[in-house]
């Protein structure tokens, strides 16, 4: 239980599922580099002529919280679906917990827990029954199953509601139950697809704490998708920014923000072109035109504000507004794509919808 791991060569993998074969087993110590929890190489998925995921590669270390950040329709869920064996990739390969997603489906499935983007509970069953169903599917023996269910329901604070039908649960409770369920078989890797979508801020905060705790205390590798910048920023050790099926940047969120080159200053002006020309100073690390404004990045922005104002004033360029903030992942996304993740949301949904209609025909 939980210690499941595929080993190379592939054919012997299933024989290696004895309860004692943990990741720290003798085969796997000095000399040999530890296998990454997940590795993907040129993973690609096409739906007819639509490329949902375009040759992405990445490796996730054990115990890491890894975020796939991108607008809706960017290919996050498709990536998760391929890694969890729910979808066959068109090209490329990947391993999860050492198991090949094509040849060792069962190994992958035993190694992972998954919380889908859409709810996947049986509302006509109680929380306990949903957990029990899951435990039986993963062949957890009776006593152990019972104990584990009690433990996990306590962990997510649903102990006293365990015998209530899920249809009486709130959105946050359902989400917590799904996470508890995903942990029941002690997976090595936990997939969370938009775990806090549609939840109120308080519940989100709670969930984030759970996720951090799980990672810290149980050492579970977590891969989560999100289109919330703050979520990726707060939770993830590393973030891959994904757009139109490709990874456009991947690093720790601090390193990504450093690429911006310091603080972000946004100057709005009726004549942004002229403003951009004037502000092209040596202390400006990066300068971009965006709609009616100029976006500058620089170190110690606070000290340059007076200079910006006087320079523009001297050239008779009006300033509509001026703002300074520390760089966020939103800025990183903008920097790499030239678009805001939020304005992309609607059109991303649109693509998905069109795509679905096409599939149906």
């Amino acid at each position: 239980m939980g210690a499941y791991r595929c080993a190379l060569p592939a054919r012997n993998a299933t024989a290696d599922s004895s309860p004692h074969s943990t990741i720290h087993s003798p085969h796997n110590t000095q000399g040999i580099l530890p296998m990454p929890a997940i590795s993907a190489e040129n993973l690609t998925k096409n739906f007819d002529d639509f490329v949902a995921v375009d040759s992405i590669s990445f490796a996730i270390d054990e115990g890491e919280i890894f975020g796939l950040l991108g607008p809706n329709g960017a290919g996050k869920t498709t990536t998760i679906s391929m890694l969890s064996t729910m979808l066959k990739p068109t090209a490329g390969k990947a391993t999860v917990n050492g198991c090949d997603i094509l040849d060792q489906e069962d190994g992958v499935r035993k190694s992972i827990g998954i919380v889908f983007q859409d709810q996947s509970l049986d509302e006509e069953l109680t929380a306990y029954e949903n957990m029990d169903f899951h435990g039986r599917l993963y062949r957890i023996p009776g006593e152990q199953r019972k104990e584990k269910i009690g433990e996990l329901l306590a962990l997510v604070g649903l102990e006293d509601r365990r015998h209530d039908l899920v249809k009486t649960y709130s959105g946050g409770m359902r989400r917590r139950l799904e996470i508890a369920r995903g942990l029941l078989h002690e997976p090595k890797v936990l997939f969370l697809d938009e775990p806090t979508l549609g939840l109120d801020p308080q519940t989100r905060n709670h969930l984030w704490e759970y996720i951090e705790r799980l990672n810290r205390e149980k050492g579970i590798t977590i891969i989560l998708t999100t289109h919330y910048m703050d979520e990726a920023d707060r939770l993830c050790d590393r973030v891959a920014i994904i757009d139109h099926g490709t990874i456009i940047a991947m690093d720790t969120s601090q390193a990504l923000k450093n690429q911006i080159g310091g603080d972000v200053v946004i100057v709005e002006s009726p004549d942004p072109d002229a403003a951009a020309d004037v502000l092209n100073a040596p202390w400006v690390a990066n300068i971009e035109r965006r709609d009616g404004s100029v976006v500058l990045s620089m170190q110690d922005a606070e000290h340059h504000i007076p200079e910006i104002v006087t320079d523009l004033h001297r050239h008779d360029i009006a300033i509509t507004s001026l703002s300074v903030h520390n760089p966020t992942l939103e800025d990183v996304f903008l920097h790499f794509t030239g678009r805001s993740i939020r304005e992309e949301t609607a059109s991303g949904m649109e693509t998905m919808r069109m795509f679905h209609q096409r599939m149906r025909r």
Partner: protein
Amino acid sequence: MDIIYTIWLRNIKRYLRSKSRIVGSLGMPLFFMLVLGFGLNSVVQIPDTGQGYFEFIIPGIVAMSVLFTSVFSGIQIIWDKQFGFLKETLVAPVSRLEIMLGQTFGGASTAFIQGLIILVLSLFIGLSLSSAAGFVIAFLFMVLIGIAFTAFGIAIASRMEDMHGFQLIMNFVIFPIFGLSGALFPISSLPAWVQPLTLLDPLTYGVEGIRYGLTGASQINPVVSFIVLTAFSGLMTVAGAWLFRKMSI
């Protein structure tokens, strides 16, 4: 085996919990039984056996009840697909065959219970108990109908996106299967050109088998009925399993 049991158990739990569905799906069979059975009992006498009409249609109504419940149970996996629960099942390290079989036996069991309720009710209304062995034979055929048509429902559901096509299936597939089955009239009284259609209808053999068990008389040899219906159940299970395996979500 334990996986099949797990899926079966969920089906039974859901069934026992939905009292309104149990009562609701008793409505139509009871209506048929009372209106046709009592209404026509004094007018119609079945040739050859000399049975009253009420006695004659009880097996047909039982078969109908099993048929409708099982098809509906099979098609229900569309709900699971739409509400996402199917994903949870499919991502587990179990084979789709096990899932499909669990679903089939679950649906067949609920359909059997539903048919049994009709059968017990008809005992109070006027069906006379012939022999215990006869009941066992009737039960056997009810189970076979249940398996065959739950698997049929799963096969259809595997190809359907949502519940929109459900009415279509009911009106153009299930009702004709019921109507042509000899549930409501003796096969021999049909015009010669309709008879082959009746014999092509798998439900005919189910109805005849139940009829043999309950009344001791049937127009088709019960052994033939048993063989045909078993073969059909097997075929449907294979078809259902195959389509379910190919289904993408």
